[in-house]
């Protein structure tokens, strides 16, 4: 038995960020809340997501379980929720169904299949050296990403001399965004460092973020993005692009 109540807009944001990385999600439910850790099929990015029990309005589960959802189907359902709706999620595992009920002026119940998606249960968080920690407001970060998208499909992130630099270079031109420490939430710099990343992954993931993002950056190594969405604590790891 699993049943939870959450604000529809929060769940919509959570699903949207998951959907930017994977198509099928094994959601692990236990007495502490809901967690998900998965890599995309090409092993380029990883999402580690945690929605603690207290972020739900109601939350009850009788034993640990994994519920597989088709993220695209779920987001299609979520697009039907209204911003002020409450939402009830209920698993009927005997019939392989997950019921999503929007509670507003009416009660609208959607039944979705629970799918069989293998949990990557032994998946650890990747371990890599970080030389800088950058706290940045999502809007600044997203601007840098959008600017870069005009000229290129990848972006170089660099931390040096008390500033954070986002730089992209393509066939038609180049662009550089420089953010001084004073405009950042935080900047801890052990050593100058830079790495290059695929823009579409960063754009997809950051599009639903509104609050601050903490970036852990190294030299030609993955980037770790920490942020919160809809009550979920999320770590997103993206492997670098290497010029060769």
């Amino acid at each position: 038995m699993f049943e939870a109540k959450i604000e529809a807009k929060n769940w919509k944001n959570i699903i949207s960020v998951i959907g930017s990385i994977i198509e099928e999600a094994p959601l692990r439910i236990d007495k502490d809340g809901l967690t998900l850790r998965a890599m995309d099929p090409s092993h380029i990015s990883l999402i580690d997501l945690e929605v603690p029990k207290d972020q739900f309005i109601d939350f009850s589960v009788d034993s640990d379980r994994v519920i597989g959802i088709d993220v695209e189907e779920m987001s299609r359902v979520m697009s039907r929720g209204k911003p002020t709706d409450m939402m009830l999620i209920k698993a009927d595992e005997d019939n392989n169904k997950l019921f999503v009920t929007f509670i507003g002026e009416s009660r609208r119940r959607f039944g979705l299949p629970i799918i069989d998606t293998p949990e990557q249960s032994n998946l650890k968080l990747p371990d890599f050296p970080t030389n800088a920690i950058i706290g940045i407001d999502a809007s600044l970060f997203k601007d840098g990403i959008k600017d870069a998208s005009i000229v290129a499909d990848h972006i170089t992130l660099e931390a040096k001399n008390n500033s954070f630099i986002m730089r992209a270079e393509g066939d038609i031109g180049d662009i550089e965004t420089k953010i001084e420490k004073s405009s950042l939430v935080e900047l801890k710099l052990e050593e100058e460092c830079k790495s290059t990343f695929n823009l579409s992954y960063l754009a997809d993931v950051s599009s639903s973020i509104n609050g601050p993002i903490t970036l852990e950056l190294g030299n030609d190594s993955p980037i770790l993005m920490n942020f919160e969405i809809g009550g979920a604590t999320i770590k997103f790891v993206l492997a670098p692009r290497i010029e060769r």
Partner: protein
Amino acid sequence: MGVDLKDIIAKNEIELAKLNGKAISVDALNALYQFLAIIRQRDGELLKDSTGRTTSHLSGLFYRTINLLELGIRPVYIYDGRPPQEKIDTLRQRQEIKDSAKKKAIRAKVEGREKDYVKFSQQVLHFSDEMLKESKELLRLMGVPFIDAPSEAEAQASHMCSMDPRVYAVASQDYDSLLFGAPVLVRNVTITGRRKMPGKNVYREVVPESIVLAEALAALGIGREGLVEIGLLIGTDYNEGIKGIGPKSALEIVKADRFDEYGIEERLKDLFLKPDVSDNFSFSFKLPDEDALYSFLCDEREFSRLRVERAMDRLKKGIEGVTRQETLDQWF
């Protein structure tokens, strides 16, 4: 077609994810035929645009290639050049079989025998020059490399697999590439997944398989020349084979060193052992030409725009992935 060695060659199921980061040389025509055979409408008809042009092969090539790229696999498609003279007779026979199947299919359709219609129409599969040309055009727009072989595609694919450390395996449904010396053959790669059985309402899981030539030869206790001899005894694209001899008895004959007794011309061996191949090949992946792809698939051939849009995103990421993108695997 090809040589039928499945009864004596042990294969291992593999996960496609294991091919992450590796290139595979794909027998293009072999893959395209598979798409024509399995990518169908509910009633068993080929996918077609409103002008009646077949699009099953393009649909398969587009979506299945993207599936591979998404897993970090780099497919290089190899197209046949001019077949050896010996193959032309075989090709003529195949045409006769097709002509007969076509008549049967038409009769089944007229008489309303759906299952028979599907069965026979799958045997009729015809690949026109135009279809080959447009498949190459699609690959070009997708940014996926293809190579024109001087002669047999499987020979060239096998040669590339031996020569180029980037190429891990040959992908084909046929076993011929083992005769051509491919170190690794992978089967079912482009058709992995749930597949509806023709004419029935039954699904079967198609799982990729891998055959390592050295292991297969060791298990049989023969060399590659021996395997070619087995092929020639049971029949290949170049000869009919000896009537009444199957793979198992062929293996016994070869092991007993009695191949010479069957009057098969020695020079046929060289078609496999010294095929006409080119060292002069290179391949690289490029980002797709999105506008041209939309126009090719959606405007000209009426593919669903929504589906193509979704796939385009995966294609871009996939291509990006196989060019310079690292994976996280090394950081665990």
